[in-house]
């Protein structure tokens, strides 16, 4: 089985978010970038398929040279090889189109994306990729097993979960549950050393096409200060929740 894991290179949640160029661009100055958490669950599941079922795992990112450190980290976690498509992502579709090209030429059986990336919170790349390639598609995937070309997948639904049967080729929008938090791997020294010798191929982009563009960013208005109560004036709290906040 050939697996492709799509990796988004995103600011760590603890980063301060700032913008430059008249609030038109994200300011990456001093920002720590990580593998998008949803993708990390997918990557770990892919490495499990590699170890248990002999799968070959390629990781791919659409982005500039600055994302290579993130791809190396994915190699250190256990992927066999990496691809960087040399393009600056402009919207979900522009990324999905580049990925569709990789999926078609590489003949991948299973493509695992994260259901959403933590920077733009678009949640659209996996679905668009499925639409562009015609593969089967499971989103919000929290469980995945493959037997030959038969697939059993579990997806989160509002208020529960649904078990699905389908077949390869398959695109997955994954999240926590594909593996549990405790199964995530921190790259060890050996992994980091071997990652240096693994192939990281840079491919040129196939045209560029976007349907949407960011005009600018805005910061939320500053919050008004918290109103404090004590155990002795909970009546006032209840009345504030009713009269002021109107939530009870």
């Amino acid at each position: 089985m050939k697996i492709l894991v799509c990796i988004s290179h995103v600011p760590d949640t603890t980063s301060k978010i700032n913008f430059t160029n008249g609030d038109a661009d994200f300011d990456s100055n001093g920002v720590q970038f990580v593998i998008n958490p949803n993708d990390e669950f997918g990557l770990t599941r892919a490495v499990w398929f590699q170890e248990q079922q002999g799968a070959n795992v390629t990781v791919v990112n659409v982005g500039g040279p600055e994302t290579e450190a993130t791809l190396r980290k994915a190699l250190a976690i256990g992927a066999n090889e990496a691809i960087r498509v040399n393009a600056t992502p402009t919207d979900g579709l522009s990324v999905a189109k580049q990925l569709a090209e990789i999926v078609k030429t590489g003949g991948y059986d299973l493509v695992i994306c994260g259901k959403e990336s933590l920077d733009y919170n678009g949640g659209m790349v996996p679905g668009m990729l499925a639409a562009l390639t015609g593969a089967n598609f499971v989103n919000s995937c929290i469980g995945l097993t493959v037997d030959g070309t038969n697939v059993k997948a579990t997806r989160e639904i509002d208020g529960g979960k649904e078990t699905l049967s389908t077949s390869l080729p398959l695109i997955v929008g994954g999240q926590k549950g594909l593996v549990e938090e405790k199964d995530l791997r921190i790259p060890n020294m050996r992994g980091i050393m071997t990652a240096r010798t693994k192939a990281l191929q840079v491919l040129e982009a196939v045209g560029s096409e976007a349907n949407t563009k960011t005009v600018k960013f805005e910061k939320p208005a500053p919050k008004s200060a918290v109103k404090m109560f004590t155990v002795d004036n909970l009546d006032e709290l209840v009345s504030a929740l009713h009269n002021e906040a109107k939530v009870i």
Partner: protein
Amino acid sequence: MSILIYAESSEGKFKKVAFELASYGKKVAESLGTTVTAVTVNAANVSELSKYGVDKVLKVTNDKLSAFNAKAYADVIKQAAQKEGTKLVLLSSTTDSLYLAPLVAVGLNAGYASNVVGLPVSTSPFQVKRNAFSMKAFNITEIATDVKVLGLAKNSYGVFESASSASEEDFAPSLNDADFNIKTESIDKTAGKLTIADAEVVVSGGRGLKGPENWGLIENLASALGAATACSKPVSDLGWRPHSEHVGQTGKPVATNLYVAVGISGAIQHIAGINASKVKLVINADPEAPFFKVADYGVVGDAFEIVPKLTEKIKEFKANNA
């Protein structure tokens, strides 16, 4: 030219988001000088949509669509949009709608903006405001295509009544066998239990509650408030509560009217997932807990003392105001 909304239902009954989306669609349609058409799949009482300004309902009834299937449903929405000559398709942000939205967008060659908050910033050029960076910023997005798809962020607009008389039309889109290469085997859902996705109030407990044996505190407060229960990540990692209750960056997102956090420190990864909630009430023993910085209301003190008292006060209040 009408705007198309996909009015979601479950077991034949409209979800609340269907009414929110209709309310939103009505307002956008007014500003564009057009009407609202809703497409429904196996919904029973479609006339309910008349309360919220829908002008026409395309009613799809088909046993093959009795279980949700993203590709097939996306295909239905696409065909409805083409039939109506729609330029703007509106979807909600339930798990199912988030699943099908990108498929609809590619199918219609449409630009798609998800997580949209508020009415369009401008209709020409077409610009919308959306949540990004886990609510730490907004992103003004311009959609350049002729046909556009918007996903409205959860609980971001509200439900507004606006009487109309919707005409009803049976609609039988053609279904593609290949879409059914994916089959529902089973659905595991606790019947009758209020879910985090549907609840208007969520009561959430953290490690400050010391152990699973103390969750009665959370459950009682939740039941007094008519709320769903949730927890922080360590609480589910420790097995005190099921994973389905884990909220935050790596857990479920919460966008309720009221979020009550008990014994949760307010780590940034936790806040990232719950910040879309409108009002936050934080109960924590530590006056320096970071959660107070993003809270609207706070009580400093021992949860074991505060929560039972608060629960009584809420019950009293509800009894007097019933």
